[in-house]
């Protein structure tokens, strides 16, 4: 079953690239949702509502076959773009909740010292919000890792895709898919454990 290590690498590649981009999208979406500027706020809200209302698989097809063909994007790029845009909407809500969890007095203290809204956000609010944000982001990471198996439908050679090819050549369907399932399970269990350790450390601080 040589396909496993190669497949895991691609699965990780999709997952890590997607989560990093989703975090950046999520930060700006969260800030947008809290903005007093109506246009910015409206756009951020629209993005979150639209994305959360459409199944991820449909988004993948839309970006891969729709936009990907139009702009000649390589499969991995379309896949990562679709996953990041989808998860960015959920991350936006996590960032929004994290920022809102910081008492108003903190930004008032920062502003009263002459800090701009951006300086207050960067130096005072976000470093404190990270504690609230980190655990749910960890959960999103595990969820994204599992959802990344959807990209196997596109021409991305992730763990599931390579497993499917291996099975159809060797006719060992039961063994191969058992293996694929176990590998996903081990990876997600590993990361779930890591996240709960991290959560406990944060709570202990």
């Amino acid at each position, binding site marked *: 079953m040589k396909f496993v290590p190669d497949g895991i690498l691609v699965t990780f590649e999709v997952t890590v690239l997607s989560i990093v981009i989703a975090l950046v999208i999520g930060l700006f979406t969260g800030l947008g949702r809290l903005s007093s500027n109506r246009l910015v706020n409206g756009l951020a809200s629209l993005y979150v509502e639209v994305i959360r209302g459409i199944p991820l698989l449909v988004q993948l097809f839309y970006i891969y076959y729709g936009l990907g063909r139009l702009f000649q994007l390589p499969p991995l790029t379309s896949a990562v773009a679709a996953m990041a845009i989808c998860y960015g909407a959920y991350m936006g809500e996590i960032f929004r909740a994290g920022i809102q969890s910081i*008492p108003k007095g903190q930004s*008032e*203290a*920062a*502003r009263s*010292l*002459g800090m701009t809204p951006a300086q207050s956000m960067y130096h*005072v609010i976000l470093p*404190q919000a990270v504690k609230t944000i980190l655990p749910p982001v960890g959960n999103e990471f595990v969820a994204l890792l599992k959802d990344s198996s959807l990209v196997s439908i596109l021409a991305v050679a992730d763990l599931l895709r390579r497993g499917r090819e291996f099975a159809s050549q060797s006719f060992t369907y039961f063994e191969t898919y058992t293996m694929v399932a176990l590998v996903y399970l081990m990876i997600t269990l590993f990361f779930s454990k890591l996240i709960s350790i991290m959560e406990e450390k944060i709570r202990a601080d």
Partner: protein
Amino acid sequence: MRTDTRKTMVEMRGVTKYYGALKALDNVDLDVYEGERVVIIGPSGSGKSTLLRSINRLEEINAGTIVVDGFDIYDPQVNINKVREEVGMVFQQFNVFPHKTVLENLTLAQIVVRKRSRKEAEDIAYALLDKVGIREKAHVYPTKLSGGQQQRVAIARALAMQPRLMLFDEPTSALDPEMIGEVLDVMVNLAKEGMTMIVVTHEMGFAREVADRVIFMDFGKILEEGSPEHFFVSPTHERAQQFMRQIL
């Protein structure tokens, strides 16, 4: 008698502020001069905190003008952050930064806003920590400190900006009784150094010791003003008499 030679630090004219249908500030006029110590008293909901918070624009007002250190702070041309650099504020709930050490609480805005070097900011910070008596806590996180110590950090943090005016919003109201004295001591010393201060408080002992003028507010209006002694002995307004009976 006031003389015209003194510089006006805060000039409020016709300041009015609504919270929904509630009139929190009702056509308030107030002048505070450089070097003056003004204590604002009044029952809760009288508008005294709102008045104080409008001076550095933490509250938006609906009508009137407020000029601070020569700047009309509701003029869109005026950079409010520049004005705030010169106006320190101390809050009832301290609002120290829990993710920064005491020293970092004092240096952050100096470095980010005043653009001082780390060395210079730390020198100023240590001198202020000496002054408020908690130098030994420089590298501790403020959540490990008592309320009185946290409030002294907050005062030092505001002073580190070397402001021209200090606003205190019920600085001792959230403190246990045994810690009130240590915070008031710091404020009394600051007053002796000549800092212009506007203080919302119920501590009449503090008012008697440092205040040049006491202002009594209720219903969003200044109902009476005078010396601390005036309020102890013979407040004229019925609401002020009632209030003084309650707090003394």
